């Protein structure tokens, strides 16, 4: 007979879980493994709410297993390390993203493309090596192999750094891998949400010229003034879009709702790349003439490697780049998810786990 979540492992743990697709989360007792010789145990201080959390809670991809403890933008403080751990020590600030484990021996793992390992284990809603389910960062502590942990530099505020562990790496990886984040390049960022606003900052710091592409003219001042973008395009404005045709080396498309990609392909120069990091459910139409006549490409990207994540967070700390966040107490999470669904957040909710989770224990 299957063990209860509380009994699966030797160490008691506590968090908030959703038991169904409703989007309603509540206190949840479960357990985690002992700290193994290669493991790092850290107490969770903050956890960002990623749009993917919402997708999985609602079973949008048809892959959800309940009860589910979401959360993969996790930062905290190390409380215990295994005997073979060299990366961090007790008291260090650390972070963890969406990757909990991988095979360690395939071509993707060897090249730090661990996000694409066919045996990837996700931080939540995944199946661990021992067959038990993984539970994410809406909880009091995490235990993970040191290979999947990054150090968070001292000079970066922990709460505002949390979203970098998913939103940050998700846009950083394609900026670097496809050569879009460098001086001389002009890139477009579609969508100004959790991913989009971090993408603007990182791309500017990497030296690219950045144009934000959005459906709402109301975000213009924010994009140019607050985030530092070079220009702003309203995607519904046909004249503006026409004037910008053939001007971009690449576009990072962060929009998670269904939208046409044909106008975005037209913005690309010859050999230009449209990189999609959002996950709209309905497949868009792919117009072939514009794709062929400019040797353009549409590419997907998902997270990034762990070395890459460390490089990104070190870069962000050096350039004082963090996310714009709204810190919330644990018991606000269901409301936060409702607001996230409506895009009502500038730009990421971060749960103050360290100060508010314990009080919710029944």
């Amino acid at each position, binding site marked *: 007979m299957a063990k209860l979540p509380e009994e699966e492992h030797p160490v008691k743990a506590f968090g908030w879980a959703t038991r169904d697709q409703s989007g309603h989360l509540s206190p949840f007792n479960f357990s985690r493994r002992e700290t193994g010789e290669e493991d790092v145990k850290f107490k969770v201080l903050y956890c960002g709410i990623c749009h993917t959390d919402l997708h999985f809670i609602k079973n949008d*991809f048809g892959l959800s297993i309940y009860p589910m403890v979401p959360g993969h933008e996790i930062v905290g403080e190390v409380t215990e390390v295994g005997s073979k751990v060299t990366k961090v020590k007790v008291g260090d600030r650390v972070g963890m993203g969406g990757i909990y484990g991988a095979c360690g021996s395939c071509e*993707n793992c060897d090249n730090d*493309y661990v*996000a*694409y*390992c*066919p045996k990837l284990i996700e931080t939540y809603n995944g199946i661990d090596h021992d067959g038990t389910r993984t539970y994410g960062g809406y909880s009091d502590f995490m235990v993970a192999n040191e290979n999947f942990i990054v150090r968070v530099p001292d000079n970066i505020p922990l709460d505002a750094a949390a979203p970098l562990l998913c939103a940050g790496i998700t846009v950083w990886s394609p900026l670097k891998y496809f050569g879009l984040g460098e001086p001389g390049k002009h890139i477009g960022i579609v969508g100004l949400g959790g991913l989009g606003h971090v993408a603007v900052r990182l791309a500017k710091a990497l030296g690219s010229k950045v144009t934000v592409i959005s459906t709402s003219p109301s975000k213009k001042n924010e994009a140019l003034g607050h985030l530092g973008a070079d220009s702003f395009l309203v995607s519904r404005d046909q004249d503006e879009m026409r004037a910008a045709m*053939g001007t971009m080396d690449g576009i990072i498309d962060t929009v998670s709702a269904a939208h046409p*990609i*044909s106008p975005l392909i037209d913005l690309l120069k*010859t050999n230009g790349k449209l990189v*999609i*990091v*959002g*996950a*709209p459910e309905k*497949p*868009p*139409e*792919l*117009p*072939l*003439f*514009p*794709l*062929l*006549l*400019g*040797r*353009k*490409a*549409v*590419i*997907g*990207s*998902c997270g990034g490697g762990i070395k890459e994540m460390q490089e990104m967070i070190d870069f962000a700390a050096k350039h004082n780049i963090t996310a714009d966040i709204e810190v919330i107490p644990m018991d606000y999470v269901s409301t936060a998810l409702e607001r996230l669904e409506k895009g009502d957040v500038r730009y990421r909710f971060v749960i103050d786990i360290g100060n508010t989770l314990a009080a919710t224990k029944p």
Partner: protein
Amino acid sequence: MAKSPEGEHPHKAFGWAARDPSGALSPFHFSRRENGDEDVTVKILYCGVCHSDLHTAKNEWGFTNYPVVPGHEIVGVATKVGNNVEKFKVGDKVGVGVLVGSCKRCEPCQQDLENYCPKVTLTYNSIGQDGTKTYGGYSDMIVVDQRYVLRFPDNLPLDAGAPLLCAGITVYSPMKYYGMTEAGKHLGVAGLGGLGHVAVKIGKAFGLKVTVISSSSKKESEAINKLGADSFLVTSDPAKMKAAMGTMDFIIDTISAVHPLLPLLSLLKMNGKLVTVGLPDKPLELPIFPLVVGRKLVGGSDIGGMKETQEMLDFCAKHNIAADIELIRMEDINTAMERLAKSDVRYRFVIDVGNSLSQ
């Protein structure tokens, strides 16, 4: 008042043209320009029948300017060369492909990528630098700026080499650009027609493992035994498709009709690349999820520049690669087009212009 096609230029020319979206071709009198200092006049011997010819004759893409003389896989002999032409002399075997002009000044032109020039002039159904319409290779002769004329290698057969001028470069260019030249990598070729069969041959010459992906098994034996493919995958066989999931580094998608991309994307490894070179008349659906979780790429490619086209011809000559063709007479072109629409050709029709085009 606009001049008639016959009166536009000083040299009388004769070919076959389509006059309306029925796509039916029939004899057509027109004219070609004087051979200028940069020009080469080509007496046309053979012209391949590309699926683009059919798309254009029937206005399937919506921009045909009738009457249209199709044909952009042209092989012939130089009969006149302009004063500034040094690359060619009278009597040389030459080829003309999909383009006959470009601006020569923009960044793509400067990078030998004339095919991506925003002002490119296509061999037919296009407006030339002089403002007149271009007419293609289903005709007796053509006058072309030397920059857009290819040297036709001696050891390539003139008739079977003609399809390389479009089909050949169309698959060769993305194979080079996307790195499909590393021996040992696995290439899938979707669709086994004019483009597909040449992709198999070139892929094997690059040292790749090649799997043909097709909707039916009827071409299987030929693909393996005659074309040299390593394996053959039928998309309607779920067990075989499942076994092949995540095994291909690249796919060249040559299918000219609307088709689902999801099954093809599932065949790619992580970081795999699907390059589409066919031009169905309607957009395809792009499944996003497999792209995102696999960092997969769907890219387009459109023929190649002149330098690369010459490189491709020389490569094919070196490796004895030519198309598998069915030679037809000019007057059989309409029947050939009907058969092409049903993919009933192994694998390219080539018109024996030199021996069958008569007024």
